[in-house]
């Protein structure tokens, strides 16, 4: 019984954080909203026994990525006012309408039709299932998915080298 209550609480927190991200005038508030969303989603991962992914979410996203965002927001300057007049008329309300239609269609499809691609799990969050432990993730990651693992290692190396190259770029004096 605790799982539906936890789901409702945490999904409300995640949606509130998402609203803050898209609606806040101050970019720092947007970053804090994303922090709330990330933590709530991490709790939802734990609810589904994905312990390692929840830990990675908190450490990498909430720790590293969000700190990077806050650094850049502070460097660019929070007091830079984002001007809110619309270059395209009615763009904002049109996009909001489209997004609302998409969510309503998804909700309608899942709740009001016999839309069960997969049967609901019998045991729910049965703690005896070891699907999210470090061992359960690491074993397939280093055997079946080792090529993708190496590719992400290459990607991270290239990204780090590219970021450093961009930071050190100076236009050559003529």
């Amino acid at each position, binding site marked *: 019984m605790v799982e539906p209550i936890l789901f409702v609480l945490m999904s409300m927190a995640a949606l509130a954080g998402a609203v803050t991200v898209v609606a806040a005038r101050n970019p720092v508030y947007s970053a804090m909203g994303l922090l709330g969303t990330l933590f709530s989603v991490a709790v939802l991962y734990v609810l589904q026994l994905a312990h390692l992914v929840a830990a990675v979410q908190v450490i990498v996203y909430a720790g590293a990525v969000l700190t990077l965002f806050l650094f850049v927001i502070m460097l660019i300057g929070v007091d*830079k006012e984002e001007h809110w007049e619309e270059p395209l008329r009615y763009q904002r309300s049109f996009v909001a309408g489209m997004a609302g239609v998409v969510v309503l269609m998804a909700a309608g499809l899942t709740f009001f039709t016999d839309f069960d691609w997969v049967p609901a799990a019998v045991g729910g969050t049965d703690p005896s299932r070891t*699907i999210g432990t470090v061992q359960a993730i690491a074993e397939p990651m280093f055997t079946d998915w080792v090529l993708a693992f190496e590719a992400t290692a290459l990607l991270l190396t290239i990204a780090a080298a*590219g970021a450093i190259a961009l930071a050190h770029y100076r236009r050559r004096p003529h």
Partner: protein
Amino acid sequence: MLLNQFLVLGAALFAFGVYGLLVRRNVVLILLSVELMLNAVNINLIAFESYLVSAQAVGQVFAIFVITVAAAEVGIGLAIVLMIFRNRKSANVDDLSLMRW
């Protein structure tokens, strides 16, 4: 517990991300919206993995890969944003019309 509620939550988060991506004018906020969309994808991956428990733990391994790609994207994206800001003194996408024909 049902699977559907996680899918609806993922759709809602994705919709908020799309809204922010199309409506906000600050480049940093556009990147924040992209992070929201990637999180929505991760919610779907974890939810499906939790119900179709697979031997290769496909959903969770892929979620970790998505988080890695997001970290790389943020690193390079924010470096580009800083570079643009250094050159043009603006982080507003309406001012960045250099590559427009």
